[in-house]
């Protein structure tokens, strides 16, 4: 488990460096259908997806989504199939034309830039990795990776060199001259990843990149993304239907259902305080000890509490804290900015860990 490697609270501090979010989305809508633009601004926009379809024949794929992503953050959009998540990510780089709303990347209003400018943004400021790879079968690996550089007019030598660096970065050295269909799925997706990284974008979009891969390779690739995020530090927007993947990769997670945002927050926030039954049901299988931090299990300090227990940060994960907490005769003091903000006793720890075992037994 590598979740500790991302520094949750510090993600926001990077934003301060470059001034403003890397990606800002406000009131984004996508409605498919003949009279799609007649829905926004009428009473119909409040209708549920089903009712809207019955009334107007239009399908609301994405309904009024707003969020911000800070530079360097990994932002995961999660939902089941049909939730509109894949449409949402395509609205962000305008592979699909939004019906309403605003998307700002790098200070540019994506939804209204002219075609030429949009192309330029795609060539330099953003890139995407796709579920089905989308590689050109008639080009070698190296030429696939260089494609983004080629379309923006870079010279052959320069793009070859850059592509070779990417080949090495994603661990495909030796396969430069292979053709995509000679590679395994995982390796093909590494090519897709390298192609996206080659253009050195500020924002990387991932559309369920690993769902077509088998589980072992999927885990490798997730680790690979974590590693790359460390090395290159890109802002990432990651689409998935897999909660474990979302928790593993995401600094923050946005949960979608029927085109709407249900909840947005860190993994711990969502597990600790599910917004509704839908989310609760969703996260019920999550090993809470692996996700929850002490902040969510502590209780206020009471006068009779012993102050001899170990001191811990509120963002320490319960599982990590468990051994030390149980070993000590005194409850753990949760300290933030030099101040004790709460107490975690053995019982609180056990409640998280044992409850989990119960549910696991219930399952089997």
């Amino acid at each position, binding site marked *: 488990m590598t979740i500790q490697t991302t520094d949750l609270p510090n993600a926001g501090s990077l934003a301060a460096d470059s001034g403003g979010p890397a990606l800002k989305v406000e009131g984004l809508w996508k409605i498919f259908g003949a009279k799609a633009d007649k829905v926004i601004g009428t009473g119909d926009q409040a209708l549920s997806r089903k009712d809207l379809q019955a009334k107007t024949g239009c399908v609301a794929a994405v309904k009024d989504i707003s969020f911000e992503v800070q530079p360097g953050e990994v932002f995961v959009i999660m939902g089941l199939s049909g939730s509109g998540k894949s449409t949402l990510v395509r609205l962000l780089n305008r592979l699909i034309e939004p019906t309403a709303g605003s998307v700002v990347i790098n200070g540019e209003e994506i939804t209204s830039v002219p075609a030429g400018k949009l*192309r330029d943004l795609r060539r330099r400021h953003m890139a995407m990795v*796709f579920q089905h790879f989308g*590689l050109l079968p008639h080009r070698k690996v190296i030429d696939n990776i260089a494609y983004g550089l*080629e*379309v923006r007019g870079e010279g052959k030598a320069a793009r070859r060199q850059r592509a070779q660096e990417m080949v090495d970065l994603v661990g495909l050295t030796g396969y430069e001259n292979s053709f995509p269909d000679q590679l395994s799925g995982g390796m093909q997706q590494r090519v897709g990843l390298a192609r996206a990284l080659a253009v050195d974008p500020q924002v990387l979009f991932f559309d369920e990149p690993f769902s077509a891969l088998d589980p072992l390779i999927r885990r490798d690739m997730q680790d690979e993304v974590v590693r790359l995020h460390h090395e290159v530090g890109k802002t990432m927007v990651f689409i998935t239907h897999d909660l474990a993947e979302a928790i593993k990769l995401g600094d923050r997670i946005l949960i979608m259902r029927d085109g709407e945002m249900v909840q947005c927050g860190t993994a711990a926030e969502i597990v600790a305080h599910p917004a509704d039954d839908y989310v609760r049901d969703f996260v019920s299988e999550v090993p809470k000890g692996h996700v929850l931090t002490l902040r969510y299990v502590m209780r206020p300090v009471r006068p009779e509490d012993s102050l001899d227990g170990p001191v811990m940060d509120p963002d320490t994960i319960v599982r990590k804290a468990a051994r030390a907490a149980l070993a000590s005769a005194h409850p753990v003091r949760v300290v933030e900015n030099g101040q004790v903000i709460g107490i975690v006793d053995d019982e609180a720890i056990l409640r998280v860990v044992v409850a989990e075992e119960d549910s696991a037994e219930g399952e089997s």
Partner: protein
Amino acid sequence: MSVLAPPLANHTPPEPDTTPWRATPARLVRNRFAAVIGVLVVWVVAWALFKDHFTLTIGGSEQTPVFDWLRDRSNWVEEAASSGSNPVINFAGWIADIVDSVFSWLQSVFTVAKFPRPLPQIGWLGTIALAALVAYAAAGWRTLALVVPCFLSFGVLGYWDDSIDLLIVTFFAVVVSCFFGIALGVLMAHSRRFSALLTPVLDVMQTMPSFTYLLPFSILFGIGPAAAVMMTLVYAAPPVIRITAHGLRGVSGPVLEATDSLGQTGLQRLWNVELPMAKRTIIAGINQTMMAALSMATIAAYINSPGLGQPVLDGLKRSQLGTSFVAGIAIVIMAVMLDRSMTAAGFRAELAARAGEKGGPFRKVGLGLAAVGTLVALYLSHSYVWANEFPSQPDLGTPLRNAVDDFGNWLRTDLSHLTDAIQRVATDYGLNPIQSLLADSPWFVTSAAILVIAAVVGGRKAVISTVVCLAGILGLGLWNHAMETLTACLVATIAVVVLAVVLGVLMGRSHRVDVGLRPILDAGQTLPPFVYLVPVLILFGPNRFTAMVAGVVYAAPVAIKLVADGVRAVSPNTIEAAEMAGSSTWQMITKVQLPMARSSVLLAANQGLLYVLAMVVIGGMVGAGALGFDVVTGFRQANDVGRGLAAGTTIVLLGIMVDRITTYGAQRASSPASRA
């Protein structure tokens, strides 16, 4: 081998039918059948009552205002062409001039001596070396090993010049056709509106028998290679346009999306992604276009197109079976050669990309050596008679021709009593009663009957097309001839379908039969229609029956293959299940395989009709009369130009009508409402 013969029809994918009423399939079929029988009964009664009234017959030399109007238009075009007063026609003339000069230059290089040089610039050795080099470079040594013997066989059969002329015409037409065709295909793939605009035009073009192209093109471009090339390239264009559009639409969405996300322009997308990924499909389209162009060869001989069509046509005119046959064989060899080389070139392109730089130097050396060899061969061929004029020995053509001629004489003398009797019985008891029903009933009775049948078989959409076509046919003034032609078509098509079902089921059920028959069918599809006509003409004499038999023979290969493929496509699971249920062979065929291959059978009927129509029209020249003859005279008698144009249009309308009825019928047969 791909489909070689003129791809006349359009394989529109079946659309879901929206028949409002539901019925079980068996009852539906039974209802339709009963309805058709009912129509026929009423029709026969009406025929008996009103026979020979309102039949709209027209005398052979009669002119109508419509004919006059058309003739005046045609004369106007010819006058404008000679006086240069109309920019559009001048443009056509300008194109014809360019084509002519390029063509005569090519001929002077390969086949025709330009005075004072007694021989062409490059004779057989140089031509073969060049062809071998191209084959090697584009498709590899295997293809080289195919191309060289094929070229040699042209010479040994005695048709070196004609073969090369035909190759020049075909290549010229195909290159231009593909240049514009691929461009149009790209536009179709990208613009729904353009596609909707062009699709019906292509539909009509593919229903038009090649023969109907003659008259308009000779009016616009005169006669000679220019007109032949223009006619061929227009006739051959639809497959490459359609298949290019289809190929581009089939390019994987995720790849397009992925490459779009990298900020490519539309042109980069077309050039780097769409065209390369659709390449294999497009090459298949080019191949089909090439085969269509080749099938135009004999027809184009009518307007003095140089090439193998000339001897085939000569054979027909002089009823020399041998001449037509040997020249026809040369055409088949050429078709096979082009088809295989093109396919190999398609594979090769991909292999070459695969091989990458590895082995590059070897290939370069090989190519270099081959190029040097070719240059030397070209020099020799340019300088020495022996390397320029194809040697007269060995001569395979003459003995083959004589043998076939002897066979023809045997048919003529020893079989004519038998064949006369067959022809007489079939005409008197088969063809004539049906023709009388169609042509001797009052026109409104026949129209109504056709409309009702169209409604029963093809549904509402078919009725609309039928109304339009029937109105057009009536308006053009050749109603009676149209009905005669339609009769011949229908009777021959029934024969084709019967043949297709019998042989198709045999082929579909037995691998051995399939392996034995398929090459024959493939070759049969490549033979020019005239080659069929000559022996049948010898056997049965100049009459409608001859045209029909030739039509059946011409249409059978494609129909048989369609049914065989349909039977073969029946899922093995279904067969297993039926076997487990204890079906006998007969039950298996009639209750499982044929019903499940129903849409293939209907498609075979559709294709059969269009092929038969093409042949019946050609048969007009040899006693079958009716519309085909009207087209021929229109082409060959200045006074009848208007009539010929009207007849050509009528044929097209007939073609569209039967195509629409059968296509919609096939769609209904495979639609969920009537499927088990």
